[in-house]
């Protein structure tokens, strides 16, 4: 049976324990405190979807608040990637509503969705780079489509490639890049234009641990330094450790540093949602998921 966030909030204690965390939250959101943060960036209301008679999503309801990173966990075929495609309007639900920044996009036409998608960034499993054009043109794609002058395009492309640490690869073709580099280019391409909502579709699958770590750091930077709302689909446990356990800050020398949450600070802007056969079987924080007694979740977390 599907559970909604509101129901879970009632059954589970609030994740934040004590005054310190609220202070931490205040400092994280200090720059944007005037914005209406009560409005969810993404909201699913009882979304159903089936393909050829097989249920993919069975009454999915959840919210992603502004500046929040929602990690969607689950085994293969559990409906994780489908959820992301629904947010982007690449698929349409059979029933239920999908609301983005307060606008109900469920019945939007493809032309209307094109405008909504301008506020999104999407990182695909294998990068999904356009392999007939160079890294530069891939990253510049959105700006070229909007007819931005070339010198501005180059500036922005270089800035984004620096963000993912790949400025050297600017003139290469996608076929010349390794798997991890392709995904980082994919991230740079998705982030051009400063999207408000970014979606990661298993961005670390099949990558070596240091590259996977780099990609998680990018997600943390987006969440903590750029105030981006995000959905991070994964089934790798170390991704969750990184994203739920660390935060990014700008150090004294201007460098970005990553620090582990400790006794003084508990990250409240990252939550976990676990799907199984199109239903939500868990929604809460990393601390809560580790304490759960559900045998399926325990097996999923520990591998046995």
């Amino acid at each position, binding site marked *: 049976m599907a559970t909604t966030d509101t129901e879970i909030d009632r059954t589970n204690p609030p994740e934040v324990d004590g005054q310190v965390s609220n202070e931490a939250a205040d400092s994280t959101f200090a720059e944007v405190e005037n914005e209406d943060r009560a409005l969810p960036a993404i909201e699913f209301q009882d979304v159903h979807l089936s393909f050829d008679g097989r249920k993919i999503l069975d009454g999915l309801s959840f919210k992603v608040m502004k500046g929040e990173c929602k990690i969607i966990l689950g085994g293969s075929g559990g409906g994780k990637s489908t959820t992301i495609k629904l947010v982007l309007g690449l698929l349409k639900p059979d029933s239920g509503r999908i609301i983005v920044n307060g606008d109900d996009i469920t019945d939007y036409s493809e032309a209307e969705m094109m405008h909504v*998608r301008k506020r999104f960034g999407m990182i695909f499993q294998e990068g999904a780079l356009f392999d007939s054009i160079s890294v530069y043109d891939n990253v510049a794609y959105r700006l070229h489509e909007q007819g931005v002058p070339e010198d501005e395009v180059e500036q922005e492309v270089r800035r984004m490639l620096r963000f993912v640490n790949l400025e050297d690869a600017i003139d290469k073709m996608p076929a010349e890049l390794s798997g991890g580099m392709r995904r980082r280019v994919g991230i740079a391409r998705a982030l051009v234009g400063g999207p408000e909502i970014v979606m990661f579709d298993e961005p670390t699958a099949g990558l070596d641990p240091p590259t996977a770590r780099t990609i998680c750091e990018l997600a943390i930077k987006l969440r903590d330094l750029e105030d981006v709302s995000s959905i991070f689909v994964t089934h790798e446990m170390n991704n969750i450790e990184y994203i739920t356990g660390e935060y990014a800050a700008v150090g004294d020398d201007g460098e970005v540093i990553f620090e582990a949450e400790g006794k003084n600070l508990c990250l409240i802007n990252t939550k976990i949602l676990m799907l199984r056969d199109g239903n939500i079987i868990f929604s809460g924080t990393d601390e809560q998921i580790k304490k759960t007694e559900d045998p399926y979740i325990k097996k999923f977390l520990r591998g046995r």
Partner: protein
Amino acid sequence: MNFAIRSLLEVQETSLLVAQAARRLFRRPSYITEMLAQMDVIGVGSLPIIFLTGFFTGGVLTLQTFPTLKSYGAQDQTGYLVALSLVRELGPVLTALMVTGRVGSAISAELGSMVVSQQIDAMRALGTDPVRKLVAPRLLALLLMMPLLTVTADVFGIIGGGTVATMLYGMAPETFVSSVRFGITSNDLIGGILKPLVFGLIIGSISCQKGLGTDGGTVGVGRSTTSAVVTASIVVIIADFFLAKALQVILDMPK
């Protein structure tokens, strides 16, 4: 789903795709560079095979018809017969079949690979309409290039026929040329240009629809490419029959 319903559904999807492409053709941003690139690939790139196909088809027509016409004492009409066969039928149909094999398969494979590697989804996620960016320029390029390629095939076919007639059968070049000039009417030429326009639409729409409808990974790309070539070839040949009949009626040609 049985074959008839599946076919009807495919016809519906292909027609919808063409309608969408036509509606979005003139919206901004325009993809003129993309279209010119496609015209180069489809038109200039196909010239060598069209040249060879045309030349040798014309040659073999002369080879087969000259002895027969000679037995009736009508060998002076060889040029007329070769040119008429080429302009009315063989030029448009053979060009269409060659372009299907070369361009239709490439379009379907390219779009199919883009679908399975999520590039089409990425394009939509980045706010670009794949129908406008990928389908419309290819369709338009095919519509513009098919008549030009057909004319090329006709011309090289007549040259091939003339070469065989003069070199192998010792016919005077002037006799061949004048039988071509006085045999072909403007209605034959109009029909010979209208057909490839329709064939271009058939090849473009079927290969784009098959490519975008790809599923099932790399195996699916192979399947949709084969299906695009087979379907487009068959539809071209069937459409040719009905077009020939329609042109006979419309242009008031001898039935």
